[in-house]
């Protein structure tokens, strides 16, 4: 089997974020699949570190916005300010105009601000006073949110959760990794050498989108979707957009695995991250309902 092309980057990020190799690879797959990432976890689990490491790893510009309840849409998108010298308005871009945006604690902002961010994520452009400004490419939003049982938060509705390709939960590190962390083995994100630049990332994204999906594989995804929609399964099941996301993520995963084609194992690897937040339940349960021997 061919070598895994991004293994050096995964290893390097592994020295910054200890013991989270699986989560790092999923985050990379999300990035390669041109999707946006939602990290749901408690404070202090390394969310910001992961976002910063991803941005540095690809040499991307990185901005961080802490969402608060009084954050307004214009604080994200930027505004037209009056230039007294030239007696005219010019556009002052907001933090949205960066290649990697870390939206910290997105569920603390008002629904109006959340909506502005999600619109920009979907459209890839921002409109201010009727003028449309394209966002930089590549553009990745990593949003974090705390557990929804905390006071003073506005949880994202399902329709907006659907805009994130993946939802990850980092979780506690294991004892060994935590011991290393306490021992000072973790490097700061600033020490990461870029693996490639933005052009290289765009090429990787293009490559991921052309990974071969055989008919048998697409049938597997369709069987999973059909099973999730069955009457005896809770909830409405996987939407076509979810299936698209599932295939795109599986493609990126297969590229990370060093293959030029997608197998059911790739689909199974990304399924929980892609489907859990859309189904509001454990998507891995779907796997047992569909025959993987094909």
């Amino acid at each position, binding site marked *: 089997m061919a070598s895994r092309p991004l293994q050096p980057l995964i290893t390097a990020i592994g020295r910054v974020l200890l013991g989270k190799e699986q989560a790092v690879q999923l985050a990379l797959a999300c990035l390669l699949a041109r999707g946006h990432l939602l990290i749901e976890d408690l404070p202090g689990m390394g969310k910001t570190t992961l976002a910063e490491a991803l941005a540095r790893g690809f040499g991307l510009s990185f901005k961080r916005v802490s969402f608060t309840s009084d954050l307004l849409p214009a604080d994200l998108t930027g505004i037209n300010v009056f230039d007294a010298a030239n007696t005219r308005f010019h556009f002052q871009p907001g933090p949205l105009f960066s290649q990697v945006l870390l939206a910290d604690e997105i569920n603390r902002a008002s629904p109006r601000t959340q909506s502005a961010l999600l619109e920009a994520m979907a459209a890839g452009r921002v409109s201010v006073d009727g003028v449309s400004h394209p966002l930089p490419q590549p553009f990745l939003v990593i949003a974090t949110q705390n557990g929804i049982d905390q006071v003073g938060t506005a949880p994202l509705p399902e329709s907006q959760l659907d805009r994130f390709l993946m939802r990850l939960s980092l979780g506690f590190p294991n004892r060994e990794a935590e011991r290393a962390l306490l021992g000072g083995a973790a490097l700061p994100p600033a020490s990461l050498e870029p693996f490639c630049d933005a052009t290289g990332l765009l090429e990787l994204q293009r490559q991921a989108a052309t990974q071969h999906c055989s008919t048998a594989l697409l049938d597997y995804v369709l069987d999973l979707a059909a099973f999730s929609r069955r009457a005896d399964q809770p909830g409405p099941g996987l939407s076509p957009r979810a299936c698209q996301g599932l295939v795109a993520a599986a493609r990126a995963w297969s590229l990370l695995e060093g293959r030029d084609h997608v*197998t059911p194992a790739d689909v199974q690897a990304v399924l929980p991250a892609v489907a859990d937040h859309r189904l509001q339940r454990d998507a891995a349960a779907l796997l047992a309902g569909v025959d993987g021997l*094909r």
Partner: protein
Amino acid sequence: MSRSARWLQILGLAVLAAGLPGLDYGSPLGWLSAGLLLLAALKLAEARSVQERRLVSLLTLIGCGVQGAQQPELLPSVLQLLGTGLALAGLLALEVGEGLSWRAVLRRSLAVLLAALPMALLLFLLVPRLDPLWTAPSLRGPGAAVTGLSADLDPGSIASLANDEAPAARVSFSSATPPDPQGRYWRVIVHERFDGRRWSRLDEPAKATVPPANAPSSAADQAGPSQVWLVEPSPVHALPWAGTGQGSSSQLRVSRNGELRRQLPGRERLAYLLRDVDRPQAWQQRPPTLVDLSLPAGSNPQLESLGESWRTLPQPEQRLAAAQAWFTSHTFRYSRTPGALPARRGLDVFLFERREGFCGHYASAFTALMRSAGVPARVVSGYLGGRWVQPLGGTPYLDLRQSDAHAWSEVWLPNRGWQRVDPSAWVGSSASNPVGVVGSAAAGSSKLEGWRLGMQWLQWQWWGLDLAWNRWWLGFDQASQEALLRRLFGDQRQGLGLVLLGGAGGLLALGLGWLQWLQTPERGDRLERDLHAVLRLLRRWGIEPAPGETFGQLCLRARERLPGRREALQELSRCHGLLRFARLNPTARARHWAAWRTALRTLQHSP
């Protein structure tokens, strides 16, 4: 809806349109072709749905077929094939081409055409040869004349003869060597009626014509040498031939006086095959009528008195010899620019005063002399000589130009029938064949001349290919087909229809099967079968697949339980992943397939 499908269809229609100018709009089929093309183009312009675009491709295919029925020549055939390929590619792009590249679609269309080849071959060999279905009278008046020999011969009114280098016909011989120059007389029109100045054809009803060599064909005739003619459009019904041979089509008829005729004059080029036969043709032995002796009294008094002076000789052969002696004893000169002869006593002025002229003058004067001497005679016009061309590819052939047109005489000798006499030959060797003057009149600057010669060379090469093609498809006529069937099935052909039907069905199934095989490179069923064999083996060893498990995961689990079969299981898992999910070229697929089979056998035979 793919854009490439639309472009392929537009291209297909354009190629088909290129064949339109060559069609004969005198026949309904010509208009049908043009109409089909127009319909397809309009449909293409307004088509929105897949069904409508499908219709465009189908119309194009039908158009190709209809054109093919009218134009079997090489260039139109190539165009029709191209059009068919493009129409098929358009259809394929429409049906399966989503995401396929142009080249992939064209390659598939070629595969479809190849798959249809066995059926086409069978049809070519076995479908009964029919004469053209459309023998409706021409819609065009006789005025739409093209270059060719004239039905009337009036040499006296022609002051000078232009050198027309337009192609007239091409003929190739199965023996690949041309007849010797003395034998290259190709007769076209027989002029029998003479009004003292003008020779004209005898209007003969079509009923009076017979097929050439109308005799029971024998197997020996099929093997004999043959000639393939390609004749440019001509205003007359008559076609060039050597005066002997057996035609391949009932479209060809021979008149009472030995003209080879086509049923209809046409604007399209005509190709026909004549097989050489040894039997004398009927027209050569058909006795003369009064027309062949008639001479308007007093129109040329000097000529008449000279001819009548030979009546004292008892035998026609002697009168003929006397005429030849008279011509050779006087100084005649061959000239292409003799000036016009007076309307009255024209032949007298030619024979006794000017004594210069071209073949028409000699044939005309000699024939009149023979008639006045009481020997039945007539004027024949046609072609003489021709250029022997040996192209790089294709068949060597004789290239006949309008400048090779010639006129000569035929006289009736009681025991020998109609005999050819060429009085022009008596006035000097260089005179009889005007080939020597090619291009001298058209000589321009040397560069232009070089260009002209280059084009000429190219045209000769193309004509060679064209003739080879025509020889191929004309050569397989009804008689050859009959001979083939007899050889294949003997004289007992009771169940032939069933055999044909069975054969056609078999070939069709073969073609379809091949297509099916082409379209399923995965060969999924065999892999599926083998997979179940592996699962059966694993079950025997107590390993059941878990719900939702992939084959790779199952193999991984089995490897822990069956350490002795680690390698085989790993190989199976690897090959299965590739064969089922990867995009493989045929050689790689075959390699992994072989590895899969080997691993499966190893697993089956492991203790």
